[in-house]
């Protein structure tokens, strides 16, 4: 079995939650194999991240360069291509960084690539059996992957449950010397622009009436607003509403929007993609109303109603007003 690596996302010396999930996923490939953390960065932040990883990884490869102080996917990829032994198994998070880095990394290391892995069913010799989802989570698929010349796996956030911290007594090994020149890259990171604050802070609301594609037209958002008013709640939304410019970006729930932690979440015409559900924390009570009985949201919800929200929401609003 080839060596198994986990690419670690960290910020200001603090390791991201994805690190522990990658460690769990790696053990599903081979429970007996040691897992090596790959950590790029610079200075005190890098050292802090490496030291804390020794508790959960057998070995921690430190890759230090001032050029890697910001984790730019183009530069990180270049560094990893130099450092990874041939045939490596590399796990990375399927987030905005992993989506930027991993497809190209797989080509440059002549490895197979499987993105957005939600389960690992095992590995027989060089054939890895994985599970993915397609069509926005409406169906699942088994994937067979030939890893004889290595593989890069992007792992979906939240798919591998971290039950207890496996205790390792890892050591930090500095591999910076194996890295070649990082100049001459044709993409240069300039800055990060923070999201603008909106009129309503949906992260502080206890009850959210959230609308998705099922609302159909901008004018229909008023139907959700009326329900929210009757419940003294706020209206939030899923990504298609933002793409259509029907609401402000600050109202979006999801990994690319806000992370909310309401007590009650009423998902109206929202299919429930993992990116959307990734923005829902604190185990809220979820009511899902959707006209597609196959919508993935019904797996995550506590209560489900198969209905057209344009008819159901006004009926609900009228009833609540009469209370």
């Amino acid at each position, binding site marked *: 079995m080839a060596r198994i690596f986990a690419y670690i996302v960290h910020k200001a010396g603090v390791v991201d939650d994805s690190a522990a999930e990658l460690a769990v996923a790696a053990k599903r490939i081979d429970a007996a194999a040691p897992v090596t953390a790959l950590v790029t960065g610079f200075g005190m932040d890098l050292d802090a991240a490496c030291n804390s990883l020794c508790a959960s990884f057998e070995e921690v490869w430190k890759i230090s360069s001032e050029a890697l102080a910001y984790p730019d996917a183009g530069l990180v990829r270049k560094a990893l291509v130099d450092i990874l032994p041939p045939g490596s198994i590399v796990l990375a998070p399927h987030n*905005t960084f992993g*989506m*930027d880095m991993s*497809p*190209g990394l*797989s*080509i*440059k290391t002549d490895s197979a*690539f499987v*993105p957005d892995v939600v389960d690992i069913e095992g590995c027989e010799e060089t054939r890895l059996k994985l599970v*993915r*989802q*397609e*069509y*926005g989570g409406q*169906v699942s*698929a*088994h*994937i*067979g*992957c*030939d890893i004889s010349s290595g593989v890069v796996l992007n792992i979906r956030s939240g798919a591998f449950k971290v039950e207890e911290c496996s205790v390792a007594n890892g050591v930090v090994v500095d591999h910076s010397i194996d890295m070649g020149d990082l100049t001459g890259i044709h*993409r*240069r*990171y*300039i800055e*990060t*622009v923070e999201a603008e604050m909106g009129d309503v802070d949906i992260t502080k609301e*206890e*009850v959210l009436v959230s609308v998705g*594609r099922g609302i159909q037209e901008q004018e229909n958002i008023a139907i959700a607003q009326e329900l929210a008013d009757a*419940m*003294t709640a706020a209206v939030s939304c899923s990504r*298609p509403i*933002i793409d*259509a410019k029907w609401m402000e970006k600050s109202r*979006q729930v999801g990994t*690319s*929007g*806000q992370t909310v932690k309401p*007590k*009650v979440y*009423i998902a109206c015409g929202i*299919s429930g993609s993992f990116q959307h559900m990734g923005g829902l924390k604190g185990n809220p*009570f979820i*009511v899902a109303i959707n006209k*597609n009985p*196959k919508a993935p949201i*019904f*797996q*995550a919800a*506590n*209560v*489900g109603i*198969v*209905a057209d929200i344009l008819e159901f929401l006004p*009926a609900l609003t009228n*009833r*609540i007003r009469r*209370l």
Partner: protein
Amino acid sequence: MEILVCVKRVPDTSENEIEINAEGNDIKRDDLVYSVNEWDNYAVEEAIQIVDRVGGSVTVVTIGSEEDADTLRREIAMGANKGVLISDEVFDGSDGRGIAAILKAFVEKDAYDLILSGAQAEAGLAQTGGMLAAMLDYPFASLVNSIEILEGNKLRIGREIDGGNKEIHEIDLPCVLSIQTGINEPRYVGIRGIRKAASMDIPTLQASDLGIDMRFVGRSAARVKRTDYFVPATGEGAEMLTGDTEEVVERLVDILKAKGGIK
């Protein structure tokens, strides 16, 4: 600027309930409504807007069958200048690397300054653009939600990252960008435009026309293969409220009261 946009025709998930066929090797394809992949539609719109600003032309390309030519005609009706269909039986069963290898061979036949793709399609793989860029040795950025043309053959681009934040980069041309939804507002394609493009001839290229590296292409070369579709054994899922609307509303109101949704 010469721009290539890689597009794909997909079953429209907002119009269809996707179900698995009896053999478990595909989804049920009868009566599916197809459309251009949503992310690709934003990519084509962005390409057209760039050409409107700085000149040049937009070529759309897809890998598929004769039915996919209509997707290209739709993009031409939208404002693309040219469509090319790449179609060959030997492509069947290709994995992401295979698809990227086919596109690489096509890109190398012409000179493009900018290559766009949608950030992802129906399978949520989000891999074609990044793989193609790596094969071409071009710089790449994914989840791009703004593009500004700078002097000196380069772009200033924004990438969508977590929490609604945006990562800004400068990137040299030629490059590959994968486009995130919401970057623009794709124009409406009227029935007149579609009619006008309906008779348009779409050139079709085969493997032998392209000089593709066949080590990567087709089922036998694929390292990643879907073996079957299945319905996962899930948890209990939601308690479904059924009955007429009045009944369902009454029960939901009781539940919301109990859970603190209604004070």
